[in-house]
């Protein structure tokens, strides 16, 4: 499956056109093109990393899981049948891996916060909250990051996964069901209970 490109340092996937869609890249990867798989990995790794970070609350765990998920996808690329989007298939691998590690207690038990982009300070939610609570924006952001991550980690893993995929990633219930291997009804039910719990934990920031 692997051609000589595997032995070289990673570089631009020069032999794979940048405009190729995921389906074409996946087909090329299944035919043995490491460059095609690397192009897919580069395209999706940021979202994958973000999703795993929101799920685990720990930056280092998320990085390890992200790499392991990509390796698993690489080794099993031929099992991608094209019945779903490539990123749905990749997310499924990553979420299952994360939930499995959580079940086995193999993840770090503390939050390790990710860096905040500069634009976070001027986000509408932060501006409104800072105004309502009459507090400094920079301090509020630090506090918000800890409180929101802490509240997410207080949820059971499967509820947390649904909230992350629905609210943070913005995926529809049908896709979430495909990723988690459950029905849309189960997704909506878990989402409902997760939101109720989060509203209790974060009520200080939600009251008018």
């Amino acid at each position, binding site marked *: 499956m692997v051609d000589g490109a595997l032995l070289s340092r990673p570089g631009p996937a020069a032999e794979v056109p940048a405009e190729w869609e995921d389906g074409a890249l996946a087909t090329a990867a299944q035919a043995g093109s490491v460059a095609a798989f690397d192009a897919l990995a580069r395209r999706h790794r940021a979202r994958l990393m973000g999703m795993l970070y929101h799920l685990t609350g720990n930056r280092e765990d998320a990085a390890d899981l992200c790499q392991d998920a990509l390796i698993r996808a690489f080794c099993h690329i031929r099992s991608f049948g094209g019945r779903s989007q490539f990123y749905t298939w990749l997310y499924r691998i990553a979420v299952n891996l994360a939930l499995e590690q959580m079940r086995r207690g193999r993840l770090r038990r503390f939050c390790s916060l990710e*860096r905040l982009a500069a634009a976070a300070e001027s986000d509408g939610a932060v501006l409104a909250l800072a105004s309502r609570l009459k507090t400094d924006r920079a301090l509020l952001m630090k506090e918000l990051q800890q409180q929101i991550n802490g509240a997410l980690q207080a949820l059971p893993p499967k509820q947390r996964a649904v909230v992350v995929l629905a609210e943070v990633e*913005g995926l529809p219930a049908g896709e979430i069901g495909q990723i988690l291997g459950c029905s849309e009804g189960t997704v909506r039910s878990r989402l409902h209970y997760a939101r109720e719990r989060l509203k209790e934990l974060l009520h200080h920031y939600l009251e008018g």
Partner: protein
Amino acid sequence: MEPDADERLGQLLRWKRWEQPDAAFWERFDATFQEKRLRSLAREGWGGWLLRLLRGPGRPALAAAGLLCAVTLLTLPPRPEGIAAAVPRETEFLLLTQEGPAGAVEEEIFDEGDDGFCYVSQAVPWTGAAVLSAYHF
């Protein structure tokens, strides 16, 4: 109209999208990923490689090659005995030559044995080399 608690919760959760690693993180990530991938493939070993080959698109060609080898081995005629001894250093033989292009091999019938084989020594001019062949009638 002021957003309700549900909308505010959604806004806060979407705010988490601003949590993003920097470029230096991705450089380290890529390097570690490549190392892990190589280690993973090395752990697979030759068995894994062979399994991939057998499951891969080259499977029909591999199967055909295997079949050809098996057929060849099963149908190869037994090597006639004494062929090494059929090249004495000095032998009288009937020389037959054929008119042909310059540099053509001069064919010499070396021996017709009782075993049904005709041993032919072909001397290649100007080279001092010879080719010994055995033909079955």
